[in-house]
């Protein structure tokens, strides 16, 4: 019988706010055995991070209320411990790995101080010994140059290296339990694969239990022995990972799995969670077949052509402030999009895909080459034609003006060079709302009153206001939950059907690309290394990088095949 490391029993937790108490956890129970890797999967706001933070009692105690339930971690009743007692176990017996490696390390302190500090706090060693331990830990994370990383400031390291530092830190005092809160969400897929492997290997080697918090079912499938599915503050289902994912019992788990593009027919309509949850009582399985939708392929003439498109950014300047050396972000890219088609540009952060997207809409100027829209250089287009190309940005949180009501945001492109009346604009905004699936009574609201998915609908509506022909979509679903991502993908496909739109779809997510794109171009180190029909490129890649990328993508099917 394995020893139990964590036992949570019927825990309820309320946040106290001026608007009244908000119940974040509604009676959850959870157990983690020694050496076990347990996943908690759920969407944003489901309460999974609250669960994680609560294990170490990191939530401000004055702002929460625990009416019932107990948490026992390694035999400690953490809810009864005071701050000083908790400090003794935090980072020692229990440690944590956080999501955002860019902000989770202190920018003004060297890695050295940050790791050594934890070791000196919990282990009785001299600073000299602490240094040796730190270097050994960094070496264990397979960092190429431990000594250099040890002496570095966080900003001198890449995201993946910082996350390795976090892992080294988490393992520094031989903890019994590691709580990892979305440890790979902010990383590129190839880096994510390395970090997940590393985490699993280190945990197995040291017999450490891991509680992994994530929104990504494929990550859970790859790493976890058991999984808890969380929805609105409750665990709706739990069990062995293969059982839960292979044979989900709860309607929410089914809906979540169905909203993933992986394994679905390309361009089919994906299930969305809210629709599934509305249909049945919780707990009951609804066998809802996913209807394949026949999409009309309307491929026409070439609409956009990139001829040796090159974008360079100045890197060093001479005495007179003139650039003397350049960083090439986009290197002689040749691509073509036909009308009505979706071309996806796939690649990892820093590969140049966003620089290219910005060049297509004229936000970046080309240093070399040309981009032709209907055989005319985009630099020579008149204003009217230029508007046929529109862009939707990644993060709807920061790309919408927080002080403008929806109708003004959506119709702003119509006021460039013209001055239509207010009522005319409001009517158009109401139409656009309907088009993108918002209620037209919402046009007077401000962006913060909407959810992330709704905000992305607003951004799409804004782009559609001038009746564009070509839409550049720069990671339009990366900031969204999977079920919301499904809604936006459905919307984009419907809009394309209805209006014959052409998409240039930028993404790092191969499964999304597989679902939506006709053609795929893979970018690596500023160059397009492979391009062609999406079936062909993604199933039988010829370039080595494409193969690496495909293998790194966490996949439900592959996790169980292994």
């Amino acid at each position, binding site marked *: 019988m394995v020893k139990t490391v964590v036992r949570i029993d019927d825990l309820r937790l309320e946040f106290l706010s001026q608007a009244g108490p908000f119940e974040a956890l509604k009676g959850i129970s959870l157990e983690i055995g020694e050496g076990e890797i347990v996943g908690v999967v759920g969407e944003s706001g489901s309460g999974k991070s609250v669960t994680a933070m609560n294990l*170490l009692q*990191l939530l401000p105690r004055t702002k929460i209320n625990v009416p019932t339930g107990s948490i026992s971690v390694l035999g400690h009743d953490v809810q009864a411990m005071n*701050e*000083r007692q*908790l*400090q*003794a*176990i*935090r*980072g*020692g017996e229990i*440690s*944590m790995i*956080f999501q*955002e490696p860019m*902000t*989770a*390390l*202190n*920018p*003004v*302190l*060297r890695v050295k101080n*940050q790791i050594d*500090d*934890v070791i000196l*706090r*919990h282990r009785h060693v001299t600073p000299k010994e602490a240094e040796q331990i730190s270097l050994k830990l960094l070496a264990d994370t397979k960092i190429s140059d431990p000594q250099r990383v040890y002496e570095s*400031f966080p*900003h001198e390291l*890449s995201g993946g290296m910082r996350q390795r530092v*976090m892992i080294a*830190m988490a393992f520094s005092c031989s903890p019994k339990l590691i709580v990892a809160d979305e440890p790979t969400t902010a990383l590129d897929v190839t880096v994510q694969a390395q970090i997940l492997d590393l985490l699993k290997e280190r945990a197995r080697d040291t017999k450490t239990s891991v509680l992994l918090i994530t929104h990504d079912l494929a990550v859970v499938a790859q790493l976890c022995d058991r999984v808890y599915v969380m929805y609105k503050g409750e665990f709706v289902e739990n069990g062995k990972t293969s059982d839960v994912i292979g044979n989900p019992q709860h309607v929410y788990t089914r809906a979540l799995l169905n909203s993933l593009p992986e394994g679905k027919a390309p361009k089919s309509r994906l299930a969305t969670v809210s629709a599934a949850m509305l249909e049945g009582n919780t707990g009951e399985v609804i066998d809802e077949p996913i209807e394949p939708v026949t999409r009309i392929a309307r491929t026409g003439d070439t609409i956009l052509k990139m001829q040796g498109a090159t974008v*360079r950014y100045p*890197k*060093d*300047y*001479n*005495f*007179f402030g*003139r650039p*003397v*050396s*350049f*960083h*090439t972000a986009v*290197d002689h890219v040749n691509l073509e999009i036909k009308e009505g088609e979706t071309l996806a540009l796939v690649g990892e*952060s*820093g*590969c*140049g895909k966003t620089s290219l997207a910005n060049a297509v809409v004229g936000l970046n100027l080309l240093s070399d080459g040309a981009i032709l829209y209907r055989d005319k250089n985009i630099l020579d287009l008149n204003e009217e034609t230029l508007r046929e190309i529109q862009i939707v940005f990644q993060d709807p949180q920061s790309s919408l003006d927080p002080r403008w009501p929806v109708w003004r945001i959506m119709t702003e492109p119509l006021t460039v060079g013209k001055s239509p009346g207010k009522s005319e604009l409001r009517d158009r905004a109401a139409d656009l709302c309907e088009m993108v699936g918002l209620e037209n009574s919402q046009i007077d609201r401000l962006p913060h009153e909407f959810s992330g998915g709704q905000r992305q609908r607003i951004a799409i509506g804004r782009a559609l206001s001038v009746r564009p022909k070509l839409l550049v979509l720069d990671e339009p679903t990366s900031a969204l939950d999977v079920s919301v991502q499904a809604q936006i993908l459905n919307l984009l496909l419907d809009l394309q059907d209805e209006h014959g739109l052409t998409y240039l779809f930028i993404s790092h997510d191969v499964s999304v690309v597989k679902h939506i794109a006709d053609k795929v171009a893979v970018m*690596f*180190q*500023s160059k397009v290394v492979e391009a062609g029909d999406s079936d062909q490129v993604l199933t039988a890649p010829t370039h080595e990088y494409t193969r690496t990328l495909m293998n790194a993508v966490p996949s439900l099917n592959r996790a169980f095949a292994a």
Partner: protein
Amino acid sequence: MSSTAETVPPDAQSGGTLGSLMGPLVPVLHQLIRLIVLLFTVTTLLFFMLRLAGDPALVLAGNDATPQQLEAIRAQYGLDKPLVIQYFNYMGNLAQGDFGKSLASGEPAMGKVLTMLPATLLIAGLAMAFSIIVAIPLGAWLGFKPERADRRSVSGVIFVCQGVPGFVTALIFIQVFAVNLRWLPSLGMEWGTIIEWAITETLSIPIPVPSKTWILPAASLAWFLMPSLTRVVAANTAEAMREDYIRTARAGGASAATLLWSHALPNALLGAAALIGTQFAFLMGGAVITETIFAWPGIGWLLIEATQTLDFPVVQSLALCIATLVFAVNALTDLSFQFLDPRLRTKGN
């Protein structure tokens, strides 16, 4: 992360070799060029503006001078020549290091300024030091848990203090400490004395003893600087405490003191350094009101006197001196950012 560095065709690179030859000197040269442009602009603007303000000959000759006397004075000081010629003469003299003579006393104008400068630097340094010593710990304490009732009431008091004008504080200090309690002198300035501390018959160590006259001016000036600095430190500390790296440190078992002093405060000081720089640069212009109230013989006091008597060479010299000091303080502030924030340190090639 890919980074494909490229060199451009050779013809575009001619400036590059020049730049690389001078290497680390480039930023220094940039600063020097900026300083020269600044001083030139200040001098030129001031020259013409001052000539619009009045006729120095009238001031020199007094109210009941005859026209002949005025003519003679104008000829003596070169004030009868066209303004543009006067300007070129003046600039020519400046280029040779001749700042002119005070119209009032005939002493070299810059010399007069430089003798008054140490008093101003002394009071500015003392006030700044007082203010920093109080504001940083106080601000850190306030920002650590800003929602607590005690912090909120202290913040309220500081908010009120910020609204009290500097001269009111100075007058209250004089009333309380000089008039009522008679602890401290209210006027004038003395340099400190040096006491020889005899350790043995032959060996003695000189110990500087500050003068009591420093306390009230420095304290009232510090009182004026402190509230805003405290509030900036508090706001930045509170902001830093909400950052992810604080959560990381807490999860690593860091105590409240470690969180505040090792993690939050070093980040909060980045914002405070900007304000300290601005405040110090402001003080370089001479704390005019404070120096006047306490009859403190600094450049702020000299500025009032020289402006009232239209003593152009002295005003011009003051302006040059203040502009240089403000420039130096700003350059130091920029340097301090690089010291405080590793992200701003440029990578050496």
